[in-house]
């Protein structure tokens, strides 16, 4: 995969997780895309992109970390 694609995909992951409702309490997101897995738990821990079981990309937060009911 080209470096540009990699960068685009990595930048998209937090947005994607946000779109899928990561900030719902305890909600877990597992999203398959091009053999990769995006996973996130609530907003307390880093969002992680698992690339073909060989690399884990831990994302910096893009919003407040704690869920507020």
């Amino acid at each position, binding site marked *: 995969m080209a470096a540009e694609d990699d960068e685009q995909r*990595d930048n998209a992951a937090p947005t994607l997780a946000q779109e899928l409702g990561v900030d719902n*309490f*305890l909600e*877990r997101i597992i999203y398959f895309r091009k053999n990769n897995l995006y*996973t996130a*738990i*609530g907003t*307390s*821990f*880093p969002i*992680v992109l*698992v690339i073909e*079981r*060989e*690399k*884990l*990309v*831990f*994302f*910096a*937060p893009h919003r407040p*970390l*704690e*869920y507020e*009911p």
Partner: protein
Amino acid sequence: MKCQCETYLLLDWQYCPVCTAPVLITDQSDELKSRGFHRFPAAFAPLSYRFGKHVADQSWFYATFCQYVLLIKFDPTQLVYFRSTLLDRYFCFVGPNPPVATNEAFWCAISLVTDRYFRRRAAIYSWSSSQEQQIVEAWYDLIDLAFLVHEKNTVLETSKIAEWSSRLDEMQTQETGPHLACQLCESKCKYGEDIKFMITNDPLAIGEARSSVEGKSDSQQIEQLAWFARLWTERTLCLYDEDFAFCMSINVADRLGWSPERVHQLMVPIRESCHIDSCPEV
């Protein structure tokens, strides 16, 4: 948690409602030495420390942590996937809306249980303090990424996690195991301590094992023991490992009160029954 006047207190109460005494924070001096403290000091603030310590003191949390380390040995990506299980169990215990930040109290709990786990390992396997320090620091480097947020994105190769697991396995290698039957095990002693703890703290599993072997002949008991070990192995690791299942069988037999001589006598058929082809269909 109890007050001096024997009143039950909730974790977030500052004062006892009966005798009005302030709720004392447990002495934190030992825990402040935790390596987790230096990575996230806010997690060791009094209230989150009180929650974190309460969770870390539960045997089920320690058992879940043992499972976490075991799973990572077989699948490094469990470093992130198993977070949800740990968190689910944390919330089952503290309730859905605890008055502390989740990431703080949880980091405190995971740090305390990490320290306890490796301290125990160091004592059992006679590690030097520098060996212990190295393996613990390397472990913190991994969970730091999984549980703490950082300002920059970070990439971790799963081979690094596998390297850490191999190093831990090497440090746990022994010539002999704690049981006579361990002579048939080829993984001495990667699983013994974790399995012993998990079995001891799972009365339901032991009850299930007891009811499945009671009143049966020797050969049926061995088959049932292997069947139970297979179920438990797959439930714990999400895959099958023969040495793990054998270790499980030996530990369950021990908990069921089988004498060491009897287990020694039956170890060959038990081992054969743990072989995947000879296990009865689940």
